């Protein structure tokens, strides 16, 4: 009951915020469309960063193809809404416009999550069976290959890009899914399965000796993470209304990695912080666009030398402030507060 009330409060708050920001609630009160877009894209980045942190930060398996799963989600959901959108909306004629759009978006996002999860399964099983860094190279390859494949599918625009996608996502939906992602990852990490993942991160051999089916746990974590990237892709497509494979290159994957490395591998609030910091820096340094990635890559190198665990490390924001020794899975004396 308490959870239900909290969810209802969240939905109501987002709904009001959405109305306020778009200027439809109180006439004359709104923010610039540019700022609204930056905030919305930050929400999508939060979904991406938090989901990537599940596999990279909490499970300790390095994936660098998150943009590939995002592309699958973006293109599959956009294909659904563009091709069947009108028929589905006609069938839902009894609902108000907001409801029709919402149902259609949810359908698109379900397809996005499903296909990204299937792709994650087929990428994850061969590479996660093995120890070491194979996942990194397989996901990097996969991310580029899927992009080349999409580029050659004419039904989704190929090299022209995919345009004419209905604008179904807005601030409300993006932040609803950002909250859902944070909740799901939080619940996973704080469950016994989450303990399993952290055990794999800390010492895979020891985890296996304790009876953990490591491959199974790693694949589940990776599939969940990929599905969420697919949802982020679907939101991205239905927010910007136009997608091109150039948005899903390895650079996008690296950007998401930079977000979670800055914020802290293995910290949910860290990923949120990293995502917001990243997009603020990106927008703030727009004049210096050509130096931006140099700055970010230097930041990555310096953080690895000075503070390899990221700003928050394994800790969450609250525990980071109160300096209590309560971080997920931190062995006493190693990563706990000093």
């Amino acid at each position: 009951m308490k959870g239900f009330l909290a969810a209802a409060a969240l939905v109501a708050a987002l709904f009001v915020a959405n109305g306020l920001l778009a200027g439809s609630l109180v006439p004359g009160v709104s923010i610039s469309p540019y700022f609204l877009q930056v905030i919305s894209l930050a929400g999508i980045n939060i979904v991406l960063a938090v989901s990537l942190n599940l596999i990279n930060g909490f499970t300790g398996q390095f994936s660098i193809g998150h943009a590939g799963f995002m592309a699958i989600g973006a293109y599959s959901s956009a294909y659904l809404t563009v091709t069947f959108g009108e028929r589905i909306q006609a069938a839902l004629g009894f609902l108000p416009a907001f409801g029709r759009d919402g149902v259609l978006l949810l359908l698109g996002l379900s397809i996005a999550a499903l296909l990204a999860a299937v792709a994650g399964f087929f990428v994850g099983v061969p590479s996660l069976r093995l120890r070491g860094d194979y996942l990194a190279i397989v996901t990097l390859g996969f991310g580029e290959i899927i992009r080349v494949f999409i580029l050659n599918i004419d039904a989704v625009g190929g090299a022209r890009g995919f345009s004419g996608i209905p604008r179904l996502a807005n601030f409300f939906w993006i932040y609803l899914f950002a909250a859902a992602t944070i909740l799901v990852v939080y619940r996973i990490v704080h469950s016994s399965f989450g303990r399993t993942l952290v055990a794999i991160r800390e010492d895979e051999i020891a985890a296996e000796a304790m009876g953990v089916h490591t491959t199974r746990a790693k694949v589940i974590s990776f599939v969940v993470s990929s599905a969420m990237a697919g949802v982020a892709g679907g939101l991205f497509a239905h927010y910007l209304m136009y997608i091109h494979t150039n948005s899903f290159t390895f650079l996008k994957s690296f950007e998401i990695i930079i977000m979670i490395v800055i914020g802290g591998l293995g910290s949910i609030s860290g990923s949120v912080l990293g995502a917001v910091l990243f997009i603020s820096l990106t927008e703030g340094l727009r004049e210096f666009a050509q130096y931006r990635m140099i700055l970010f890559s230097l930041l990555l190198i310096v953080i690895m030398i000075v503070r390899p665990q990221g700003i928050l490390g394994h800790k969450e924001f609250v525990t980071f402030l109160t300096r209590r020794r309560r971080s997920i899975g931190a062995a006493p004396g190693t990563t706990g507060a000093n």
Partner: protein
Amino acid sequence: MTTFLQQLVNGLSLGSIYALIALGYTMVYGVLRLINFAHGDVYMVGAYVGYYLSRKLQGEEPSIVSALLVMFGSMIVCALLGMLIERLAYRPVRREARLTLLIMAIGVSLFIENVAQLVFGPDPKFFPSLAPRTAFLVGGVRLTSEQITVIAVSLLLMLLLRYFILKTRTGKAMRAVSFSLDASRLMGISTDRIIAVTFALGSALAAAAGVLIGMQIPKIDPLMGIMYGLKAFVAAVLGGIGSIPGAVLGGLLIGISEVMVVGYLSSTYREAIAFGILILVLILRPQGLLGRVQKEKV
């Protein structure tokens, strides 16, 4: 049959390039257990250094001497670059978790790519020809002088590397470090020096590959290292990561299969074939063709 032989020759010359890059991956993996993501970018820098050197020498006629100068110049610059990367980026975090090392490698790779886009310009450049171009017809198969150069130079470099690793003191030390870093330190081997030498050698080979690809496919751009690096890494895994003959075999196999797929199926799958091979290797024979199974011990 002639078509097949022609494809085989084309595949061999492309495969030699992959093999040269794969050697750097496999050697660094051997000593540090690190996928050196920046290796593909060192190869790209090699191609650009070659480009600028040959522009400098362009007043003269294309000749073997200037070609050699370009090749050696590029190899020396990249050997220094490789040692610099190792010293500044990898050595400070060598004792940290492997994930830290991996993220560091990604950071270095991104850094080189973006600096290269700024310094060299993001648009592709066209490599001037270093040697007079001719082609020979052997039994219906067309052999260009570039292809012969590529195959001959790669073969020579691989033989030199083999000699270095098997017959010299430093080579012996490299094998020891690759077997066990800690044990070789205890035996009095200066591991820091050996790791630096490994990076220098691998980077020099990548630079040679960069100049050779410039001769063969004269278009170079600052992001070319990514795809070539990825395929060369797949080659190293296919041959057995850590195994030097494996890297050569893997490189040639990847090159040949890529050319065959483009020739007989469709160029759409050009980038996908290496990836497909990687998945198959990981499922069927994770240790690679010539690799040994390594038991993980606590």
